[in-house]
């Protein structure tokens, strides 16, 4: 019960202090919206929107979660308020889970901005929303953990932003969001399969466009493996780098 009180209040504090602040709400809406609009303008046909929707959703989650978490944690570390959390009688895993959950929820909301927008133009009634939500949650969890991993390595907010982009932009082009993995140069293909976003996007591609490389169950399993691995790395790195 005591752990639950601490967990809930860390999450509540993050949501109130960071995610519900007007600049972040506008970032969460404007960023996916502008990407959607940009793609709509360059792809006037309805088929284009359907094909682009999984990519837009994945990208919105990726950018929303990694940006927020990497920046907020680096900010708290710099002001040393994060020490309070490290010194609280809660386990590192509870702390990691509480810190990423805010970003995960933010990412989930971001993911559905393009969906709401696309619903005005195309019929989405055939989409399996249950699997879509699972895919979005898994992408949000792995992206948030990736954001946390970046934050652990960064000392300054600008460093966190730079490290984030170092991972995010190559990922966008390697995970089949805009360029199908089949069309990637042979040398880059193995890298694609090392990225969690590849499997998340593949699930979304499967449920929205009907085209996927792997089966949904396999993709979910791989995403869970990535989530567990990243969770372990985050815990280990916090202990090694922050408890010196």
């Amino acid at each position: 019960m005591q752990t639950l009180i601490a967990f809930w209040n860390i999450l509540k504090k993050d949501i109130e202090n960071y995610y519900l602040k007007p600049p972040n709400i506008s970032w969460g809406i404007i960023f996916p919206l502008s990407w959607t609009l940009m793609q709509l303008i360059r792809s006037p046909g309805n088929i284009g929107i359907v094909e682009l929707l999984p990519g837009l959703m994945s990208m919105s989650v990726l950018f929303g979660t990694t940006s927020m978490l990497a920046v907020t944690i680096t900010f708290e570390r710099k002001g040393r308020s994060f020490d309070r959390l490290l010194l609280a009688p809660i386990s590192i895993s509870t702390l990691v889970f509480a810190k990423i959950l805010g970003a995960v929820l933010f990412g989930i909301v971001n993911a559905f901005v393009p969906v709401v927008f696309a619903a005005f133009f195309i019929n989405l009634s055939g989409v399996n929303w249950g699997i879509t939500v699972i895919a979005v949650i898994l992408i949000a969890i792995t992206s948030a953990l990736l954001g946390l991993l970046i934050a652990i390595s960064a000392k300054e907010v600008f460093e966190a932003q730079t490290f984030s982009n170092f991972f995010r932009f190559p990922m966008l082009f390697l995970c089949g969001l805009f360029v199908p993995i089949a069309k990637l140069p042979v040398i880059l293909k193995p890298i694609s399969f090392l990225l969690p976003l590849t499997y998340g996007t593949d699930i979304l591609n499967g449920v929205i466009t009907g085209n996927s490389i792997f089966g949904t169950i396999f993709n979910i399993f791989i995403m869970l493996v990535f989530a567990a691995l990243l969770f372990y790395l985050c815990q280990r790195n916090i202990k090694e780098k922050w408890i010196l």
Partner: protein
Amino acid sequence: MGIVNVTNLKKVYGEFQAVNEISFSIEQGEVFGFLGPNGAGKTSTINMMIGLSKPTGGHIMIDGIDAIKDIKQVQKIIGIIPDENNLYDEMNGFNNLCFCASLYGIPKKEREKRAMELLEQFNLTKAGKRPFKAYSKGMKRKLTIAAGIIHNPKILFLDEPTTGIDVESARQIRELILDLKKQGKTIFITTHYIEEAERICDRIAFIVNGKIVKIGTLTESMENVEGEHKIKLQLNSSIKDMKEELENSFVNCRVEIPDENSCLIISKERVALFPILQLLDNKGISVYEAKAIKPSLEDVFVKVTGIEASKLKKEKEKAGK
């Protein structure tokens, strides 16, 4: 065995030895001070004791719990006031306290009640609804201390509690620390303010270059630091001419005349006053006052650390900026 027992504690960063096999224990209800210049190893020691840093070697037992193996159990019974005010700028004072209480699993009603009580105790009730970033330095420090005791800890760790704040706030904080002592809290405090250690600590450890060079109560620390006892006599007239006679009469004593109407009797052993007073009286000299001159804690510090008080003062001024 004290409530806190530290044995051969060691911390090495690369080739730099920040803490060099120190040992000490703290009794329940005691205010134990760590006095030393910047970089002496005070914060490194406190960080290892609270779980923010891993020791390279040694043992830490806090209230019977191994703090290295089971730090999360220790963190339930300790309160930590860091050297920086690390509360949340955007949150108001009341919410900051409630949030800190929630980290210890305190239910909502209880933490709100406790937060209100502490705001009142620290004279911050009116500022309770203001964001932390709008507080003055002294107010920030007081709220940080309140946050450290919100869960009513048994043992309190204070790292440089009055550094960088105004004189009045520092005085209030020292009073608060003494109040906490009266409540039975065990307090571990690091400071580089000699007068602060002198005012609030029961025992003091002097730490320099990661090593404890002296440890003891204030009386023990200040007693006979130079290996000499000094008594200053205030007289009605000068005894310059009698210096030799006095030294010959009392062979174990040395006499110094700092000014016209006073003299210093210095001896390796305790000085028996009556024969001296009698001799002076026979010579028609009246003694108005006899005072034992004890070394200040600053004298002790300079003696045991070899660091000039002026250097410490410079650090103090730098920290206050």
